[in-house]
């Protein structure tokens, strides 16, 4: 059973919330993490498909992080990253080693591998050279927290740990109501709005039809479907997490009113945007800054780092043409916007809208960004018949 995929999951979560709430009155505050670890392990082992694969990844990543950061002490983190991401890279690149009697890929591939790899790498990148490894229960909870197990939001270890440290204190009436409201919102988004769009709008026209109007219809329908489906899932994860005492980060913040690509990634899949910014864009930008040929061209190095970051985002979804192309399109959007902002600053005026009324500029920007995002996500969906 996958999280939030059926009614039984909600019944299990209700049980988990009840156990955590009851434990608050009988278990010491410092032991919250063990209760959480027990529940997460229970869910993995009893109902999750391929549970031991996930457990094996957690043990592997814990041991590998310890090995590369405390035993070998690599000066450059890239070697450690490659070791930690090895399982995901083998699966995504579809590299198969057929050792009879088992195939390595079957052992490595399971639902949730990508998001777990993101979190594993995030922890390794944030870990200071002299920082001690966390206790295994906290690390296990960070990777296997049931509501965020499958598709995020992508939490940071420090944020998760501080939330876990005050786990029992976080369980109170106010947080319960906030969590409940987020859960209800998520249920309405995913099981009503996304479902209705999927049934009654997304499949009105044949996806392989090359008529412009049919393609436009499919494009808008897919954008709305993806938003409601994914934001619904994230809200449910946030709600259940809150009721269990863990503050899960917000992942969607009304992306339809975004005015530019930068604003869009602060509203759509926020945790992925932050992850890419912290662990890929910033190091890449600093790397280019050290290169002599880019020293005099800050705009060029920003734009190249932006395009490469979004290309990586595309590749992470899978090495398929539609994913990579949509990443490239988002990268080009960001590079164009970055150039526009730099030019505006240089010339001291808006080089595109001129002296147009700010309110009009805002609404035109929202309209443009909505359509650009819908187009890029339509390419992402793989439903565009022109590809």
């Amino acid at each position, binding site marked *: 059973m996958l999280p939030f995929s059926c009614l039984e999951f909600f019944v299990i979560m209700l049980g988990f919330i009840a156990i955590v709430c009851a434990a608050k009155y009988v278990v010491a505050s410092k032991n919250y993490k063990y209760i959480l670890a027990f529940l997460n392990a229970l869910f993995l082992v009893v109902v999750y498909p391929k549970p031991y694969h996930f457990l094996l990844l957690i043990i592997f990543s814990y041991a590998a992080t310890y090995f590369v950061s405390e035993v070998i002490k690599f000066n450059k983190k890239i070697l450690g990253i490659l070791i930690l991401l090895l399982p995901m890279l083998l699966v995504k690149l579809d590299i198969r080693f057929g050792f009879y009697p088992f195939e390595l890929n079957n052992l490595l591939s399971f639902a949730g591998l990508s998001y777990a790899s993101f979190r594993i790498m995030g922890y390794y990148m944030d870990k200071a050279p002299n920082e001690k490894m966390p206790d295994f229960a906290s690390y296990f909870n960070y990777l296997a927290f049931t509501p965020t197990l499958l598709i995020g939001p992508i939490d940071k270890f420090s944020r998760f740990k501080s939330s876990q440290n005050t786990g029992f204190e976080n369980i109170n009436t106010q947080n319960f109501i906030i969590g409940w409201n987020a859960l209800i919102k998520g*249920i*309405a988004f995913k*099981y009503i709005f996304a479902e209705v769009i*999927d049934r009654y709008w997304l499949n009105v026209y044949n996806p392989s039809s090359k008529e412009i109007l049919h393609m436009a219809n499919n494009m808008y329908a897919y954008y709305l479907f993806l938003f409601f*489906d994914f934001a619904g899932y994230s809200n449910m994860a946030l709600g259940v997490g809150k009721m269990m005492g863990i503050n899960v980060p917000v992942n969607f913040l009304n992306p339809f009113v975004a005015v530019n690509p930068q604003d869009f990634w602060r509203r759509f899949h926020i945790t992925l945007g932050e992850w890419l910014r912290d662990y890929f864009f910033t190091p890449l930008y600093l790397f280019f800054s050290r290169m002599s040929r880019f020293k005099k061209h800050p705009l060029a190095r920003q734009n190249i780092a932006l395009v490469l970051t979004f290309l990586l985002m595309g590749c992470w979804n899978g090495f398929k043409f539609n994913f990579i192309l949509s990443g490239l399109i988002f990268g080009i959007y960001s590079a164009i916007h970055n150039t526009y902002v730099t030019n505006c600053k240089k010339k001291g005026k808006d080089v595109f809208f001129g002296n147009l009324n700010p309110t009009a500029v805002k609404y035109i920007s929202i309209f443009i960004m909505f359509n650009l995002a819908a187009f890029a996500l339509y390419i992402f969906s793989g439903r565009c018949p022109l590809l």
Partner: protein
Amino acid sequence: MKINSVKQFFINMLLYTSIAGVIYFLYTPLNKNSNNKTSSSIQFVYQQF
């Protein structure tokens, strides 16, 4: 976050009841819609493996 007004209480009750009603309508076996299959991001993730 306490519900302080009776009006808010009834609005919430109406909202939750309608959500429950719509979910029942969409997912009841009596709903014989040909598109009655959930395709979600969860399945999208799962299908990759």
